[in-house]
């Protein structure tokens, strides 16, 4: 399991625990652990030194210490908001009881908490949105990629359009998506907010293309021998796709999905920022608008969070890619 999922950094620990050649394991550890940590430490040092030199109209650029402090403050705010939420429901229940005493026909309802979203809430919203956009994109991109990969004619027909749409920035799509969503998605009491739909569709439009292209290429490059086997066996179209095409196209497909997810995450932050839809992007924008002396540190907290989440998402895809790939010797980075 460990070897397939490429989590090489765990191996020396396990071997060390088993007592297998400790000296070699320690050397391996220093290579996989100490060197990267030293890199991070050097970066922090550079950051701390450089930050003090940059003066903005909001004060000096925040160093690692300020950012750490604001990270803590954001967590405290989250905890305070949760306490306030409990109190809110408590008050609401009391009020409902009072009203029922006055007006027995009243059917009490509990309204959801109206307080502001905390940093943690914003992270979760972003994760949900990116997942929804990415899943939607994959559901469209994989079948499309298979279909155009199987037919040379279709590939030639679609390729120019795909190449044209691929480099379009989310910022260009966003106004169009916003207007279309507003026009099409009309409901008195929407189940999901419009802002969520807008961000999701923008993310989808931007992260569709790598998966389409990679799937098509993967499908098109199926080994000729395998195709011949399928022909000899007179496999039906569906069986041909399922047993011959898909297994050989999967590594390429997942490489495409991995790129797509990376793009999805980047696009989402920009889309949230511009569309003012809840999430980390909005958090960054709000802090920028506030212009308080903590704003820059808080934006840096968000920058780091965005980076960490992006990294984790990429590792997740890499693990999946390793799991489904039949060529275990390939070095995935």
């Amino acid at each position, binding site marked *: 399991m460990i070897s397939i999922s490429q989590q090489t950094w765990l191996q020396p620990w396990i071997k060390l625990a088993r007592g297998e050649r400790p000296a070699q394991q320690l050397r391996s550890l220093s290579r996989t652990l100490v060197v990267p940590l030293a890199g991070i430490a050097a970066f922090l040092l550079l950051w701390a030194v450089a930050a003090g030199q940059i003066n903005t109209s909001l004060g000096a650029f925040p160093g690692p210490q300020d950012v750490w402090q604001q990270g803590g403050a954001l967590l405290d705010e989250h905890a305070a908001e949760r306490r306030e939420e409990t109190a809110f429901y408590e008050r*609401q229940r009391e009020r409902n009881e009072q*009203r029922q005493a006055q007006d027995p026909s009243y059917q009490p309802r509990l309204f959801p908490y*109206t307080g*502001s979203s905390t940093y943690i809430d914003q992270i979760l919203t972003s994760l949900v949105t990116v997942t929804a956009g990415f899943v939607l994109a994959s559901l469209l991109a994989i079948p499309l990629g298979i279909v155009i990969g199987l037919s040379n004619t279709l590939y030639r027909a679609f390729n120019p359009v795909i190449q044209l749409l691929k480099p379009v920035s989310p910022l260009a799509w966003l106004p169009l998506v916003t207007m279309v969503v507003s026009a099409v998605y009309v409901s008195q009491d929407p189940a999901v907010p419009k802002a969520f739909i807008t961000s999701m569709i923008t993310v989808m439009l931007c992260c569709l293309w790598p998966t389409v292209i990679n799937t098509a290429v993967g499908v098109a490059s199926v080994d000729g021998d395998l195709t011949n086997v399928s022909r000899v066996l007179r496999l039906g179209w569906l069986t041909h796709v399922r047993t011959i095409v898909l297994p050989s196209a999967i590594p390429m497909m997942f490489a495409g999905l991995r790129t797509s997810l990376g793009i999805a995450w980047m696009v989402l932050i920009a889309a949230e920022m511009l569309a003012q839809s809840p999430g980390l992007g909005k958090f960054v924008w709000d*802090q920028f608008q*506030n*212009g*308080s002396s903590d704003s820059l540190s808080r934006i840096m907290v968000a920058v780091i969070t965005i980076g960490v989440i992006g990294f984790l998402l990429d590792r997740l895809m890499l693990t999946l890619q390793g799991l489904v790939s039949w060529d275990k010797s390939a070095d995935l980075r």
Partner: protein
Amino acid sequence: MNEVLRTSFQWKTRPTPWTAWLAVFVLSVFAVTARAADKPLIGWPEKPELTFGFIKLTDMAPLAIAYEKGYFEDEGLYVSLEAQANWKVLLDGVIDGRLDGAHMLAGQPLAATIGFGTRAHIITAFSMDLNGNGITVANSVWREMKKNIEHRDGKPVHPISASALKPVVQAYRERGERFKMGMVFPVSTHNYELRYWLAAGGIHPGYYAPHKGDTSGQLQAEALLSVTPPPQMPATLEAGTIHGYCVGEPWNQQAVFKGVGVPVITDYEIWKNNPEKVFGVSKAWADQYPNTHARVVKALIRAAKWLDENNNANRAEAVKILAESQYVGADEEVIANSMTGTFEYEKGDKRPIPDFNVFFRHHATYPYYSDAIWYLTQMRRWGQIAEHKPDQWYLKTARDVYRPDVYAKAAKALIQEGKMQASDFPDFADEDGFKPPQSEFIDGVTYDGREPNAYLQRFEIGLKGDARL
């Protein structure tokens, strides 16, 4: 009973002896029955779950206070407050129903109703505050301007007229450069105040010509005005894209704090106790949810009173609340500068202006028709209303948009519940919605809301009479 109230209220706008007597009769009957039945004046809210929009400015305070102090919850309302990116997004939100109501520029409901910009019938029953804006210029402009200002005891004499800025603007024009200033929205109080101040000092701020498709507002302009969202003002000034701006707090004090500009005048000095923001909702919404609307106004009136209570005693606490990042989010000391009755012009030149932010005193929350008409006259003056309109049109438009009847309903409910005194409010029995003629403008021109066209005749710069671009 509410019907009775509303009709009696509309009658009194043009009182004749018998209607006045009838109004008194109806009101006393009403007072007796109300006491006898002791039934609440306003029914349960039709829509308890609400979302209101606001822009990050200190004058959104009544919304934040009504939320934080539980005044909304006392009315059985569960309100979410959402900061909006700019005034256009906010207005669109109210029109398309994403927002139930919002903190609006006084000109927005009027302009939307007459169809300048997006057309939609928006009304207001609550005026959020008086004053609260300032005009800031870049440091370089201030250095030049300062030479033309009289000094006493080493400090510039306020109020500073735009005539001190005129030579600076001329120098820009001679160099072939454009002198650019920012304001927050074409129908914002800030646009009209900035134009008023510039024109009073002999600088032409430019005309709009919507009938020719020109909505830039820069025709014949000596100073070119354009839109920048409030929170971005200091950054835009710092970047040199604009040379000055007119905006609400805390964004003038932020310029001092950051050292990027110097506030030269507050709107209190341009027009003493001028009406500023309003709480706007769409007419359709108000018709559908009358109880909810009246209850929202109740909560807001209480919040406004809290803000001004005991000679601004609660302001320090209000500052703390506004500094939270979901509201205004600027540093406490920046917000405190203007909210606690002082204003810092040049760095270190802090002067007392106790009425810089008024939320309740001087009947600040009452939606006066005369306030609405002043904004309409300025829209006409600068060409946003392209052609002559009779005085009657101004009054009719004000009545379509400003709804003192809803305000009175909310106020009377508060009096009945014992949360407020009748003395807190204008005398509803004989209030006709017009403030007496006011002359406390920087140029000394007298404004009487009953004669908008005669008022426009008094200005040297600006459209008047049948003039058409």
